[in-house]
């Protein structure tokens, strides 16, 4: 889902980057309010966590492996605003130091994976919780919705390129496939495989966090992650 440079026109990148500015501004403010002075270490360590999770290969049926993004997971355990910053910082490090995802496309990539994915995922999760579904199941549905929302946005950003940016003769200058190809291609992969990977991993982690027993040394540290107040 990381869009490399060269696929999107610089104009699109500028618009997506501009869209992320108020989002980041708001999330820095929200995180400051919620976590008072602990903001920096919390967000730094959240970002490192996000980066690490994206490194893990998850076995999928058929003998191959896939990656999870963990946006919804972070939104559930840290809150959606902190998730925005964590995933954004992880994506910046990936783009600048490892060349995963474009530098110009960072605006688009962060919008999809660091803003849409955690917020849609978190929103759906909260909705499911309100419908009295179990936490583990709600998190799975949320994660599935979150990653598919991000995939859909990616497909739209790519698919509008040939309509907006072409030569006088109508030849595409950037990504050549229109929406009628980009959306089915992206959504097929995410609705069938990547969405379930994300859902299963998120649900299993939530399940694991709920199951950490009282005699476990980690128990005292996980109360906040389980949603308990102390």
């Amino acid at each position, binding site marked *: 889902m990381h869009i490399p440079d*060269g696929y999107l026109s*610089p104009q699109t990148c500028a618009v997506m980057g501009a869209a992320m500015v108020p989002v980041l501004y708001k999330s820095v403010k929200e995180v400051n309010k919620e976590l008072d002075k602990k903001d920096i270490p919390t967000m*730094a360590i959240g970002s490192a*966590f996000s*980066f690490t999770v994206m490194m893990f290969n998850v076995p999928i049926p058929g003998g191959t492996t896939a990656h999870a993004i963990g946006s919804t997971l972070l939104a559930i355990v840290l809150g959606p605003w902190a998730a925005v910053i964590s995933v954004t910082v992880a994506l910046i490090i990936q783009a600048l*130091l490892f060349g995963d995802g474009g530098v110009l496309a960072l605006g688009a990539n962060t919008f999809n994976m660091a803003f849409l994915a955690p917020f849609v995922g978190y929103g759906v999760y909260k909705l499911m919780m309100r419908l009295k579904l179990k936490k583990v199941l709600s998190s799975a549905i949320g994660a599935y919705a979150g990653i598919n929302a991000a995939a859909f946005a990616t497909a739209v950003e790519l698919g509008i390129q040939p309509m907006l940016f072409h030569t006088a003769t109508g030849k595409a200058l950037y990504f050549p496939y229109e929406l009628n190809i980009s959306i089915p291609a992206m959504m097929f992969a995410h609705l069938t495989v990547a969405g379930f990977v994300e859902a299963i*991993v998120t649900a*299993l*982690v939530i399940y694991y*966090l709920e199951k950490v027993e009282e005699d476990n040394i980690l128990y005292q540290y996980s109360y906040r992650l389980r949603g308990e107040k102390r």
Partner: protein
Amino acid sequence: MDRFLEKTIQGIYGIFEDLFYSDEIAAKKGLMQSLDPRVKLLSILLLIVIANFGKSILFLSVFAIYTVVLAFLSKIPLKAYIKRVAVISIIFTGIILLPSTFNFFEKGSPLIYFGKNLYITKEGALASLTLMMRSFVSLSFVYILSLSTKWTDILKAFRSFHLPQVFTTTLEMAFRYIFLFLEVSLNTFLARKSRNVGKIKGRDGRKFVASVIGSILIRSNELTEEVYKAMVSRGYRGEYKTFSSFKMTPWDYIWISSNLIFIIALFNAKL
């Protein structure tokens, strides 16, 4: 089914390798290494923007040659560099673009025939080549930047853009903890692998990955508290002052002016 263990272990080793490799090259005496990281970061970003506005093959070819020369003058091993950049920009992009070059996607004058009614069009091939070149140039610049600069310096250079400090400090701190978490994960995956008998079922594999994520999450939460307390005990009160020791040298001015000349000449040539 236990390929996921090896893939993750190799992936993490790959990151450590990249870090080591870039530290080694950043320590060499080359063109890019002699520049101030702030100047380097900003100029590389601007060069990527300009390259992405490029629409013609010729314009992008000039940029492609420029990146290779830059890599050469910065003492970056050319073979490894081209291989690394080409995997994404040529091979990955090429596979995605291949269908768009055929006549069933868009009509055009035939270039290579596969059958009577199936051929690659000249226009399609040209458009794909442009995109591949653009992707190659952009990725090259990023790669040259990340190899010729110490990674901590790249992140430090962000401060000079006057972004909110919350953001830049988070970036710098995150970088340190990434390596801690990667090491913890590496050890966990290695421990699991060394205790492995037979094949791991997909189900168990997914459970294992999720439990690693869960345990790292709990540890990170614990670490946050500790780091925060450690910072407070050293006088942290919610504000952060940072020192940067970057200094502009004559090389930076030479670099900036020669790049300006290059860009202006490129636009005047109307490629």
